[in-house]
């Protein structure tokens, strides 16, 4: 049955209008993102120079200097967090994916989800009482532990999802060859999921590298190179915070530069993760 010309016209108009509205909504959602990116780049690029990456912060009153120690500190913290987040997250994820259908698995999954939703400052307080108070000082270790605690459930849940995506026929194939279960799990199942797990890990790192709150009273801050892991350490985020609330124009400029560096780091991690993930999808399709 063909619709009357009037009804057809109405449909076309409604279709156009709705498409237009959706498009406008997308634009509206992109405006804040674009303006944040644009503003940070515009403000940060003027303060960014070689010294920013190579020099220590200067005392108040002196211009120049950089945040080399904070960049190193952030990388140290990410490294320490990974020491906790990667093994616990990946092995825990494998457990949930392969054996976690019972009650224990359910509890672990629930706990991980709750931990994922805990405000990051609460994680900071927890590590403060757990490590900072007994050690009687702020330290990179405590900061790394706080970030590691945040990273673990993220990595665990993505790993679980990816391990579940590995077809059961591959497990069967390996087991039927007389390969022990643990070798099958690690070298066939986890190996097959590796690309996806790497993507998940990168996204988790991107997420924690932007955290400030859990570091405020764990890693604290440091205006100098930190030489030991049990000493307070600078980090880009905390340094940014301190500089942004200080009353000095020069510090504000440096804070913008820090914001730009941090954002670029996160963006690069996100984009790399996307590219890696896409490669896996296309590899799946061609097989």
């Amino acid at each position: 049955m063909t619709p009357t010309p009037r009804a057809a016209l109405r449909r076309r108009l409604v279709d156009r209008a709705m498409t237009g509205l959706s498009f406008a909504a997308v634009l509206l959602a992109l405006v804040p993102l674009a303006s944040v990116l644009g503003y940070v780049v515009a403000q940060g690029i003027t303060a960014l120079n070689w010294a920013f990456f190579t020099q220590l912060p200067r005392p108040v009153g002196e211009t120049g200097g950089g945040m080399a120690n904070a960049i190193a500190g952030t990388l140290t913290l990410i490294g320490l967090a990974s020491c906790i987040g990667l093994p616990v997250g990946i092995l825990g994820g494998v457990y949930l994916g392969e054996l976690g259908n019972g009650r224990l698995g359910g509890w672990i999954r629930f706990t991980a989800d709750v931990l994922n939703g805990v405000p990051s400052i609460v994680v900071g307080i927890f590590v403060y009482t757990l490590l900072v108070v007994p050690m009687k000082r702020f330290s990179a270790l405590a900061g790394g532990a706080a970030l590691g605690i945040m990273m673990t459930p993220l990595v665990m849940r993505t790993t679980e999802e990816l391990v579940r995506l590995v077809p059961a026929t591959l497990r069967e194939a390996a087991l039927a060859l007389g390969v022990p279960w643990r070798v099958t799990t690690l070298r066939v199942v986890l190996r097959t999921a590796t690309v996806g797990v790497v993507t998940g890990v990168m996204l988790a790192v991107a997420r924690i590298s932007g955290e400030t709150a859990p570091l405020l009273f764990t890693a604290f801050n440091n205006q100098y190179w930190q030489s030991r892991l049990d000493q307070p350490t600078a980090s880009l985020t905390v340094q940014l915070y301190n500089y942004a609330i200080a009353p000095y124009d020069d510090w504000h400029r440096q804070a913008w530069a820090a914001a730009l560096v941090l954002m670029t780091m996160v963006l690069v991690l996100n984009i790399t993760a996307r590219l890696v993930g896409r490669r896996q999808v296309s590899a799946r399709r061609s097989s």
Partner: protein
Amino acid sequence: MEISNTLFSRALIDAAARAIPLEQVVADQIRAVQINAYYGRTHAVRGVSLGFAANRITAVIGPSGCGKSTLLRCLNRMHELVPGARVEGRVLLDGEDIYAPDVDPVAVRRRVGMVFQRANPFPTMSIYDNVAAGLRLNGVHDRRVLDDVVERSLRQAALWDEVKDVLGRSGASLSGGQQQRWCIARALAVQPEVLLMDEPASALDPASTLKIEELARTLRDNLTIVLVTHNMQQAARVSDSTAFMLSGELVEFRPTTELFTRPKDQRTEDYITGRFG
């Protein structure tokens, strides 16, 4: 040992009761004795006793859900891997019970290989690495040994000439039939005594099916083959003996030509003449 001897004599008595020639029992490479298999409360295989003669192809036919694949999976202890699944009974491999408490299921699976309905190569590994996987994942890393095994297995699987120049590549571009022969090569690489084939050609076109069947005929010289199929023509073409299963029970087990020309049981006759299933 004593236990398995008792079981073996029981198998002999069992055979006598069912008028199977004695030589055939002795020549059985692998023998199921009173196998009951369950998925949770579902009783999938009901008291099946069946011997598979050495260097012969034994086909197991029957309609979908008759328990033929489950029976097959009991023969290399794969059935018990399904959550909630369990097995009762004995399976004698060269006279020894593979369900005895001191037997390692992993070791059993090295002796009893398996090929699945759909080719399931490891996607992260090359053609070569897939065939070498069974040895490598069990700790063999000597390149010369692996080279030899890979070539020998691919030759046995009649695939060597087609892939010898692309061993390092992914096998994603191989055809369905080639992939299935590739998986057969992978199973052969660990030199099993028995090869279980679970509807190995059901996802393939007729030409590829024929190749798999020819391959099974040649492999018979070195192996004992158990072929589960829902394709009666295939069973008639390749197998030496055929077992017909229905609702988890073994209905009839005889030399293939006899089963298809002079079935003794009415249900077998109904099935092979296409009255159901």
